């Protein structure tokens, strides 16, 4: 499957979209499909500082509990409040309305450790 362009990806199947110094973060289509019906998302607190690749929350489906890692470090400035009432939004629109949280990135250079759409696509294809 082709991965949306303009995003950066982690091996843990998160994506990040940088807009200036703020990154919007979510999980990929591949991740939501692997998890199945998502019933609960635990997100980091607004105002907390998170380090790149740190475990910052949990995504739970009917059958599985999965740790959530942040692809970029910084201060959490917003979380997707709509997911509390409708966590299945992550299944329906993982790259859009199903985004998870936003980080004011402390070091934009961290993006060098992330994957291009093409490289991430290869990882997904390898299974």
């Amino acid at each position, binding site marked *: 499957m082709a991965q949306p362009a303009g995003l950066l990806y982690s091996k843990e199947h998160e994506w990040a979209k940088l807009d200036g110094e703020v990154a919007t973060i979510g999980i990929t289509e591949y991740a939501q499909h692997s998890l*199945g*019906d998502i*019933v*609960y998302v*635990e997100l980091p607190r607004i105002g907390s500082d998170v380090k790149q690749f740190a475990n910052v929350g*949990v995504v*739970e489906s*009917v*059958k599985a*509990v999965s740790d959530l890692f942040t692809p970029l470090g910084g201060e959490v400035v917003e979380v997707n409040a709509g997911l*509390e009432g409708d*966590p*299945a939004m992550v*299944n329906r629109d993982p790259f859009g309305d199903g985004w998870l949280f936003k980080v004011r990135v402390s070091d934009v250079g961290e993006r060098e450790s992330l994957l291009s759409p093409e490289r991430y696509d290869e990882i997904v294809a390898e299974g």
Partner: protein
Amino acid sequence: MTVATPERRTALYEEHVALGARLVPFAGFQMPLQYASILKEHDAVRQRAGLFDLSHMAQFELFGEEVGPWADLLTVNNVANMKVWQARYNLFCNEHGGTRDDVLFYRRHDRWLLVANASNGEKIWNLLSSRRTSGVTLENRHGAAALIAVQGPRALEILTPLASTFDAPSLAEMKYYTCTRAAVAGIEALVARTGYTGEDGFELFVEGADAAALWRALLDEGKPQGLEPCGLGARDVLRLEAGMPLYGHELTEAITPLAAGQRWAVKLSKPEFTGRAALLAQAERDDFDRVAGTILEGKVPARQGYAVYRGDERVGEVKSASIAPSLGNRQVATVYIRKDAATEGTQLGIDVRGTRQGAQVVPLPFYSRRKT
């Protein structure tokens, strides 16, 4: 040394692959966890109908005049007094009263069918074989015979045009927990009005070689009425809502049928059976840990093994848990806890990754269908 054995495929493996199922190893078989979505499949069964491959379940055939009295010595419920074409839930216990397996017996005119959990198939087969007496003949059909279930409020109307019954006047006139020989889409089957979903429905026992043709005929007939293929994920949510125990969760070698809320199936009036003395003593003391239902206050799911507290005191652990779509998407859990914490209305706390989530003890089942 452990030798890894590859998972077996049921006779319906190719059908699952063609339908895009996510296959997972389960009790030695590659089984569909889900096709499209666990929650959509759950909804199909509650509102319309679902189609399940249960061919991984262990089927044993028991022949001979002595089967009834012999099986009565090995199980807690009555076997010998079952009528022909009757089905009955039963449990095998160990000497301590713990549960070896929970099973169904189906009595046919010339034999009995015993259906055991897939994960316990070998254990129960070894038990049956080692305790066999003259007048009892056993045949292991595990993996050779197939089982397809149609479950849900539309199961009857989907099956009726396809089925001719031989030992019951019609499917509609069959009582719950009875069975009959039938031809379904021209295929010879034993059809039972049993299931594990909390809905009305039927289970169709057929030869493995006939399974794919029957599966397709049922999908063709049922599709216009909203029949959906359903995997083990949906089945687990359905049975949990319906308060039915699952071996390895609410029932184990250490959990007795009494503790799992299956007292009704334990016939202590039978003079002798494996585990009777232990179960009698446990029933008299009535001080044992037991399975209770809980509804969680929040939206955070519990999982098997999570610790359960009353105040600061640990009183047990979670055995099964899930979102319960039939209860307005509340989170529910069965817990195995001390007797004094299992009273209805008791406020408990479930430790979810270091945070206590409130939960209240409620009666089981969580969900009962409206009887028509």
